[in-house]
């Protein structure tokens, strides 16, 4: 059996986080009553005209600058003509020949620790369509045009990815980037960030690309991976059975975990693109680009480098902390309060906090333990008020909403015992109660020391300072 190579390119639609639509002054807010945010321009009424939103252009340039892409000095909006009920004008205003963002690239980290460069062919601006609601009526489809005219940045990659995992890594990287740039809220459930995957296979070593299928309607990273894997297998099976892959649009059905052909889009489309005469060419000057470059926040890659070189974090932790802007913001908020405790903070965020958030299916923005609360806890470990073990207990109490670290430590009497006298008293008790083990230790069995520490910690309800216990215990056992 031949070995197959998978080739994947992604088209990502990122909804730009503007207040108003790309060509009208109607609101882009999600979830309103149907058609209450569709003005005459969005509805494609006769005589009304589009006027371009300045923020949309700024956001596209931000993205372009962040991936080191060429910004097109004069880009052009074109009409893509086709009939569909959720497309009110009978054409979508998009960019075709001259997109605002040209060739750029992005580095992704692979599981084996290697990194890979994925080319971004272009990113262009366009308007979103409305929504067709098929379940609302029996024989009719309902059309809600609130979303019509919402600005989209369509980010088109080169067919550079060779596995579903690479595709997911790339999609995540873009997802993180647009949120860092604050140009997209990244909300995949609400459709603010959508992926279409162009998937093909070819025999290993073959240069020519195989026929690709475009998979639409993928609204999570998990589904992206599954949809691609399903499609790759389908194509390989098809070819190995002597069949041919059809160039077509396929829909991913997450319930059935399969892709299927979209018959409605099968008809060969002739979009009749031409420059939109209602809009003039969009000029971007070098000054605009420099102004926007200067305003960019620290990007994930720069942050990651800084965490490693300045803060001494591990590559792995730095990657995870910068994986989302919200996590990095949380980390930096805590770090501001205790600049010397970077690795402890990192460990707590990536360990207990992430664990608890995942379990509760919460976003870090909605964490019941704020960065300021967490740093108080970490401080108490650092100043020996509590041990690491007790700290976990305090953390759980904080998660339950029982108050700040100090309040919980106080209320539950969890303060560490550091007083030598008090610790010695416990040690004496334990030694007296276990004469056999004392004998064994004295006979050279070092391991027994652990038994004693355990007993002492148990006796002190975990509050005895472990360092002190170790030191005093050795003296006593001599």
């Amino acid at each position, binding site marked *: 059996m031949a070995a197959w190579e998978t080739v994947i390119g992604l088209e990502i639609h990122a909804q730009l986080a503007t207040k108003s639509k790309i060509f009208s002054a109607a609101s882009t807010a999600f979830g309103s009553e149907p*058609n209450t945010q*569709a003005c005459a321009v969005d509805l494609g009424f006769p005589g009304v005209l589009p006027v371009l939103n300045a923020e949309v252009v700024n956001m596209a340039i931000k993205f372009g600058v962040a991936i080191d892409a060429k910004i097109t000095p004069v880009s052009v909006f074109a009409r893509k003509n086709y009939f569909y009920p959720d497309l009110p004008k009978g054409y979508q205003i998009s960019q075709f020949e001259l997109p605002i963002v040209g060739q750029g690239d992005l580095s992704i980290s692979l599981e084996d620790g290697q990194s890979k460069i994925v080319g971004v062919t272009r990113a262009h601006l366009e308007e979103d369509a409305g929504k067709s609601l098929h379940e609302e*009526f029996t024989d009719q489809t309902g059309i809600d045009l609130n979303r019509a005219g919402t600005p989209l940045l369509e980010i088109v990659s080169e067919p550079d990815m060779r596995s579903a995992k690479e595709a997911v890594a790339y999609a995540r990287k873009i997802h993180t980037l647009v949120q860092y740039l604050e140009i997209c809220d990244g909300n995949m459930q609400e459709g603010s960030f959508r992926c279409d995957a162009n998937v093909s296979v070819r025999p290993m070593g073959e240069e020519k690309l195989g026929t690709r299928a475009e998979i639409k309607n993928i609204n999570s990273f998990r589904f992206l991976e599954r949809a691609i894997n399903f499609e790759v297998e389908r194509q390989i099976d098809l070819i190995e059975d002597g069949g041919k892959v059809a160039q077509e649009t396929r829909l991913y059905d997450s319930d059935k975990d399969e892709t299927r052909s979209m018959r409605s889009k099968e008809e060969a489309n002739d979009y009749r693109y031409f420059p939109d005469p209602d809009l003039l060419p969009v000029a971007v000057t070098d000054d605009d680009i420099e102004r926007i470059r200067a305003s960019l926040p620290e990007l994930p890659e720069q942050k990651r480098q800084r965490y490693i070189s300045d803060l001494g974090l591990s590559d792995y932790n730095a990657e995870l902390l910068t994986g989302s802007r919200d996590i990095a913001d949380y980390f930096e908020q805590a770090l501001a309060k205790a600049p010397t405790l970077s690795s402890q903070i990192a460990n707590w965020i990536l360990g207990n906090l992430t664990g608890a958030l995942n379990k509760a299916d919460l976003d870090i923005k909605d964490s019941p333990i704020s960065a300021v609360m967490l740093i108080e806890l970490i401080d108490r470990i650092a100043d020996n008020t509590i041990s690491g073990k007790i700290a976990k207990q305090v953390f759980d109490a904080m998660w339950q909403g029982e108050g700040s670290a100090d309040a919980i430590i106080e209320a539950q009497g969890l303060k560490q015992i550091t007083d030598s006298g008090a610790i010695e008293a416990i040690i004496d008790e334990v030694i007296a109660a276990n004469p056999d083990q004392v004998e064994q230790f004295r006979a050279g069995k070092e391991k027994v020391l652990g038994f004693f520490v355990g007993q002492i910690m148990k006796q002190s309800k975990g509050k005895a300072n472990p360092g002190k216990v170790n030191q005093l215990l050795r003296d006593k056992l001599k």
Partner: protein
Amino acid sequence: MTLKTEDVRNIAHLARLQIDDDSLDQYTSALSDILTLVEQMNEVDTSGIRPMAHPLDATQRLREDAVTEPNLRDKFQAIAPDVEKGLYRVPKVIE
């Protein structure tokens, strides 16, 4: 340039216009006549000429990102052919 009736049928479909077979020939000949007129353009050497989409050499003006459109759904839908629960309705679309 002479179009075939099949071409006209395809164009009518792209343009979503119902054309009955009776008038297909008529459209075919009228459109062919116009195309013949249009093909006078071939007499002009246009090599190296930049296409002109707009009469004036202006660039796009940008609008401030602000929401100023009120909800006028009732007014807009008062003239709609088929509306229910605030939705425009069309025959069921199968995807």
